[in-house]
């Protein structure tokens, strides 16, 4: 069966061309990428540090995701996160990116109800085979304090990578059963990034840190407020699991 020529190759008008161009050129923002990586509990490592072919990178990704899916506790430091790579991607949405190796991931975390479970139950129609139950993707194993602190810069919009680094410090602390350290890191994040683009993710981490530090009432209040504001958030189930809602 022959395939017709795509409309963009023979547009009828400039308007048609512009609309088709707009549809084809849409790309994810750096913020979307960062939030996706955070939601998966993954940390990106620049190719210069972890050289890998695309296929190898995907293999690592699949391995990492598999560990998320089956809830295997993985212990080990990722090494030195290179935020320059993410920084490069944060401000634009390139069509093609270099391969990124992804190292992960789950640490011991409460996961009575997981973000993944919510996805599966609410959004994804089950297909042929049974779904593998999984635990929550939790803080990455990036070496604590390896991430650079957010530097104050004269620009009005600090790099997203600086926010990621700050949050990763908190996530790592939480993953190492150091909720006090996580809360301190989150306080720093709030101070350094009062209008942070990842403040929702920061709030989820704070709720987890409060719960793990024994401040259950404070955690519960924040969790309830979070769920009122973001009832459909992909992070809502994680918040519930932290406080047993």
């Amino acid at each position, binding site marked *: *069966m022959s*395939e*017709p020529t*795509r*409309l*963009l190759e023979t547009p*009828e*008008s*400039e*308007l*048609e*061309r*512009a*609309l*088709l161009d*707009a*549809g*084809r*050129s*849409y*790309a*994810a923002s750096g913020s*979307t*990428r960062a*939030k*996706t*990586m955070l*939601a*998966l509990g*993954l940390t*990106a490592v620049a190719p210069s540090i972890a050289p890998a072919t*695309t296929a190898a*990178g*995907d293999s690592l*990704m*699949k391995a990492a*995701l*598999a560990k*998320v*899916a089956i809830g295997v506790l993985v212990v080990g430091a990722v090494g030195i996160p290179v935020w320059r790579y993410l920084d490069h991607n944060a401000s634009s*949405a390139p*069509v093609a*990116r*270099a*391969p*990124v190796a*992804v190292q992960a991931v789950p640490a011991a975390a409460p996961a009575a109800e997981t*973000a*993944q479970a919510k*996805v*599966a139950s609410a*959004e*994804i129609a089950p297909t*042929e*085979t049974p*779904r*593998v139950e*999984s635990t929550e993707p939790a803080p990455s194993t990036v070496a604590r304090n390896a991430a650079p602190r957010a530097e104050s810069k004269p620009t009005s919009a600090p790099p997203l990578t600086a926010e990621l680094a700050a949050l990763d410090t908190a996530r790592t602390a939480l993953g190492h059963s150091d909720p006090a350290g996580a809360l301190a890191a989150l306080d720093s994040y709030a101070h350094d990034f009062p209008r942070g683009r990842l403040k929702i993710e920061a709030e989820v981490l704070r709720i987890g840190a409060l719960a793990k530090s024994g401040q259950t009432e404070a955690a519960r209040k924040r969790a309830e407020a979070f769920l009122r504001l973001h009832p*459909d958030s*992909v992070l809502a189930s994680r918040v519930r699991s932290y406080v047993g809602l």
Partner: protein
Amino acid sequence: MVDRYLDFVARVLRNAGTPEAELDDDVQRTFIAVSNRLDDVRPDAEKSFLLQTALRMAAHARRTLARRREVHDSDAQLRIQAPLQPEQALDQKRARELLDEVLEQMTVELRTVFVLYELEELSMTEIAAALRIPQGTVASRLRRARADFRDRVRALSGSTHAEVGS
């Protein structure tokens, strides 16, 4: 995998009807879904799996949006775009808004095939496999979708006398 397919997933979601405000969450949900079903995904079928998942997400987003509009009917009036003015250049943002308008007026069946063929440049064979419909159905829907799209763009252009792209 995230790096390779992030733009693809975001684009499919957006063009298939996920509102901009919901995009981050739906991108995350799509990739989380992969993590849940990883053992079921053949290495050569990752893109197809992501595509099917993204289309389901977008369908859910469209339904949610439709319910909201039923509740807030006045919003629908506000959504009517001001016409393009003569000599108005069509920037990317405005083009995106107009594309959303046109796509939203198409039926889901036609829109999906149109998006996958014209914007994602998938082959009709790939589309048939992804949507699990016969190739003849894809061809038929594509023919109607292209005609529908062009009619709507012509109407958009004719009613506004816009001089765009200059």
